[in-house]
């Protein structure tokens, strides 16, 4: 498949771009909810609108009422979310949780997917237990208890956990903390007893939870997939999430870069447009190159993932790492080239820097993924 959008995808891109610029823009969404100190960090009305656009169920199979689209398509929406810094449950609900639910029973799918597709429900995913992403280590325990399980432990950095109607939780049903096997995924409803959330606002105004499970009783039908068979599903969730985060990151990078290049064409210093200064030109051109490459590796990885290629695993880490580097450069150059006003809350460039930072950390930063590239390459 060629590495550009086909006609349908191009049409979707046009639609998504128009919709997000109109409805999901920084003024209407990010600043709006942030300045109101919104406990969700996003707007439910927009989520509903996204459902009407058909976005929320893109990755859900047609048999389950979704559109049965792939990661290229989801990436198109995520790119626009990134560019507009649109706060929404799309990545966690429609990509991560939706990927987990693909492996769920008819019952689970029937219970949760319609709400997602309608834009009524929000889902979160709880994996990490410390401040750095380390999915190889799952200590939260789910012990057999009657017909079901009892969940004990804690999770951190659960994006939108407090807003979620259901949280996908990776827990250990056998083995020790760092074992590959023995993981089971559970769909935990929001009102589960003995689950407490400590919601904290993050630098990008999103809200994440520290969750404590203090003997949370779950029915057996809360299990997604097989008991002890959760690692593969978790890996699929992680890969989908990383590729999705990378797609959003390219949007963030492009948005920051475009805003900066525009500024270079407007701002005068020493009697010249600052875009005339060759040192800035070269840095802008280098940045452009890095962002283009990030864009390329993301679409390549999306296609591999949609094709079920084995190399999608390696390339998802390449993509996440490359995007982290490119987007990190874009926001740093962006703020520096904006000069003093880049430091003010009034200008949007700083918001890109904040979002980039949170996105970098989500599901593994450039270091984590470069290390994973080495490991998967056998060194």
């Amino acid at each position, binding site marked *: 498949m060629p590495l550009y959008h086909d006609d349908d995808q191009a049409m979707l891109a046009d639609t998504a771009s128009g919709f997000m610029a109109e409805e999901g823009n920084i003024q209407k969404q990010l600043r709006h909810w942030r300045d109101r100190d919104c406990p969700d960090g996003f707007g439910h009305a927009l989520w509903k609108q996204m459902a009407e656009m058909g976005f929320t169920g893109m990755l859900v199979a047609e048999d389950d009422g979704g559109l049965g689209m792939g990661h290229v398509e989801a990436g198109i929406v995520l790119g626009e979310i990134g560019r507009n810094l649109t706060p929404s449950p799309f990545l966690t609900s429609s990509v991560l949780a939706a990927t987990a639910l693909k492996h769920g029973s008819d019952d689970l799918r029937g219970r949760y997917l319609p709400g997602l597709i309608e834009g009524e429900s929000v889902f979160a995913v709880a994996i990490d237990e410390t401040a750095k992403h380390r999915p190889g280590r799952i200590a939260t325990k789910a012990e057999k208890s009657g017909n079901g399980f009892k969940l004990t432990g804690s999770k951190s950095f659960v994006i939108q956990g407090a807003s979620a109607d259901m949280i996908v939780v990776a827990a250990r049903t056998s083995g020790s903390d760092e074992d590959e096997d023995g993981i089971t995924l559970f769909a935990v409803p929001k009102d589960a007893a003995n689950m407490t959330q400590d919601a*904290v606002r*993050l*630098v990008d105004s999103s809200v994440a939870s520290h969750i404590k499970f203090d003997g949370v009783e779950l029915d057996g039908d809360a299990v997604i997939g097989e008991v002890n068979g959760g690692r593969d599903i978790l890996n699929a969730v992680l890969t989908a999430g990383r590729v999705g985060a990378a797609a959003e990151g390219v949007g963030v990078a492009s948005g920051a870069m475009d805003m900066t290049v525009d500024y270079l064409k407007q701002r005068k210093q020493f009697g010249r447009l600052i875009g005339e200064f060759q040192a800035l030109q070269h840095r802008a051109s280098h940045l452009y190159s890095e962002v283009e490459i990030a864009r390329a590796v993301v679409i390549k990885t999306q296609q591999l993932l949609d094709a079920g290629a084995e190399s999608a695993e390696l390339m998802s880490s390449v993509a996440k790492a490359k995007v982290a580097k490119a987007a*990190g450069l874009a926001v740093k150059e962006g703020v520096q080239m904006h*000069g003093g006003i880049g430091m003010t809350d009034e200008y949007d460039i700083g918001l890109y820097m904040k979002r980039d930072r949170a996105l970098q950390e989500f599901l593994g930063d450039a270091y984590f993924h470069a290390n994973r590239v080495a490991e998967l390459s056998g060194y």
Partner: protein
Amino acid sequence: MSDLESFRAETREWLEANCPQEMREPVRDEEDVYWGGRNATFKSDAQKAWFEACRDKGYTVPAWPKDYGGAGLDPAQAKVLRQEMSRINARPPLSSFGIWMLGPALLHFGTEEQKKHFLGQIARGEIRWCQGYSEPGSGSDLVSLQTFGEDKGDHWVVNGQKVWTSYADECDWIFCLVRTDKTNKYQGITFMLFDMETEGCSTKPIKLISGNSPFCETFFDDVKVPKSYGEGIPAYVGEINRGWDVAKYLLGHEREMISGAGGGDRTSAIGAAMTRHAAKTGDELDPVMRAELAMFDVDALAYGAMGEKFLDEIKVGKAHPAQPNMMKYVGTELNKRRHELMMSAGGSRALEWESEQTSGGKPSRNWLRTKANSIEGGTSEVMLNVISKRILDLPGS
């Protein structure tokens, strides 16, 4: 015992007697800094006691002459005092743009009466000063400033707008670059001093991406600035229309201060601390991040040596006069990189913006704050231009 050794002994004794235990803790935030000024309040008795002890001893500005409120220490003694204060982690008794910026300008360009009048107030923490340099249209290109003072004989009428005036909303007086001759770009600027309570002065805080508002926009609407505050006390530093000389001198001084004195935190390695900190919270930094920290530590420790060398050389006039630009460039870029790495090492916990465990988002707010390092006081781009021209002697473009 040499004079210096006995001075050290005395100093140690004096500090022991006068520096309260509470004042021997690192500064954690703005609360811990005493800025002085008309409306100043002390955050604790200890802060007050420590400030007053220093003020009375001349130790708010130890190297200034006694006549101007200082202690008249020579450079060797001043170094001993610094060492002894740093040994017990003593906090600065008074922080002030008057000390850092206006003071040096007055010491260099001021009249005797001006020095006695203004320096004394600064040393005693009576007047808090802010700096009126940048304007919305003139960032790096400072000399293009537009704020205009119309000559009305014994006074000027000043109109215009400044930006990035630090804490202007809390300050008493401003030292301010004002155009007084529109026909001469460089020799048409006057370095004026006036009270922020003068009619027509107003300020508006600027909210930064860090969420803090240490800077203001400052507006002058027909502000009447007299040309003199009494016999031998002109309301400007240096000569009328020659304020650019003062500004240039101060910019050099500022870069020197940022580059040299910065010290401590700015030159320190972070790898070990970050690794320990992560371990404490159950994390383990991956090998690639460890490598980045190691590469950073190499640069930080090497820059530390450069800082020492720079200070040693500047003392004896061996440093290239434009070297502060290099120090400022490298030091600020390094500091930005340091905080990027600290954020990475801190992981999702460092992203928290308001939580208690981060004392209200310190890691991320500090990180965002560092992004201004390479903009304020001359951008990195301007520093590189200066190095090209003045040190490498490359041809003008």
